[in-house]
């Protein structure tokens, strides 16, 4: 998405204006900036949430499969930023490398290999669209209402972000068996995918 040149100064000014309160907040102390509830955190969160939600809606309203894949790329990047905001740095990096770098490329390969033209469309009846939208909206609204009403106890006890050191130790002690099983599964999947996608020779 490219911004028109006319809009660019306005965009820069707006982002500077947004940055000023954040900058004013930061020198108050590094510990406060890292504590949950900082103004900077709120601003960044809303920007990321807007990005994630907007691009997810972009995925579901695009008719074109290539556009869907591009919107999905934005969504995956936004989700990685959400992980960084939640102090899960390693998971954010994994999300970017495995999801945005691996799974998405695989999907794009799938798109390119399975359509006569990449702009092929599959039309769906209007009634079906309306029914699906009704189901999704009802679910979204009811889940939001439930979430708003729930009181999460121990919301105060936010701990400092765990380090990769802790993550690695936990993965190789408590979760050793699932870790090995996942390794075997990946091996099986690699062989299976190669077998499934092979060219039939008659």
């Amino acid at each position, binding site marked *: 998405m490219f911004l028109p040149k006319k809009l660019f100064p306005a965009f820069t000014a707006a982002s500077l204006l947004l940055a000023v309160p954040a900058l004013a907040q930061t020198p108050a102390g590094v510990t406060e900036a890292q504590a*949950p*509830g900082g103004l900077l*955190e*709120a601003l960044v*969160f809303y920007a990321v949430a807007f990005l*994630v*939600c907007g691009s*997810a*809606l972009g*995925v*579901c309203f695009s008719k074109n499969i290539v556009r*869907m894949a591009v919107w*999905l790329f934005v*969504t995956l990047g936004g*989700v990685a930023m*959400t992980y960084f905001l*939640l102090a*899960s740095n*390693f*998971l954010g990096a*994994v999300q970017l490398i495995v999801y945005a770098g691996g*799974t998405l490329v*695989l*999907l794009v390969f*799938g*798109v390119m*290999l*399975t*359509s006569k033209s990449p702009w*092929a469309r*599959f039309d*769906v009846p209007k009634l*079906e669209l309306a029914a*699906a939208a009704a*189901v*999704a*909206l009802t*679910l*979204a609204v009811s*889940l*939001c209402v439930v*979430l708003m009403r729930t009181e*999460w106890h121990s*919301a105060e*006890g936010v*701990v400092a972000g*765990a380090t990769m050191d*802790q993550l690695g130790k*936990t*993965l190789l002690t408590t979760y050793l068996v*699932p870790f090995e099983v*996942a390794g075997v599964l*990946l091996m099986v*999947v690699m062989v*299976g*995918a190669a077998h*499934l*996608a092979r*060219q*039939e020779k008659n």
Partner: protein
Amino acid sequence: MLTIGLTHYLIVAVVLFCAGLYTMMTKRNAIGILIGVELVLNSATVNLVAFDRYLGGQKLDGQITALFVIVLAAAEAAIAVGICINVYSNLGTVDVDRASRLQG
């Protein structure tokens, strides 16, 4: 509004989930349905990481489960794309409504 809590992240996850659900219900292209599945899986991992951060303590269960979800999603995508390519070479299309024969 300015204090970002668990609920905020969960609402983002709700939007992701419902977008994925809608995508799965309305797309006829098999790869499009796969993209919907990826959205739903991402919503699940956002939930896991958010709960881990706000309610999990030091045990890291949520983050590690999210890690496994990412691994399984990659595996699932590989197999599903393989199946789609196979379906395409047999039927000439990836329209899921037309893939109705049991024996190729």
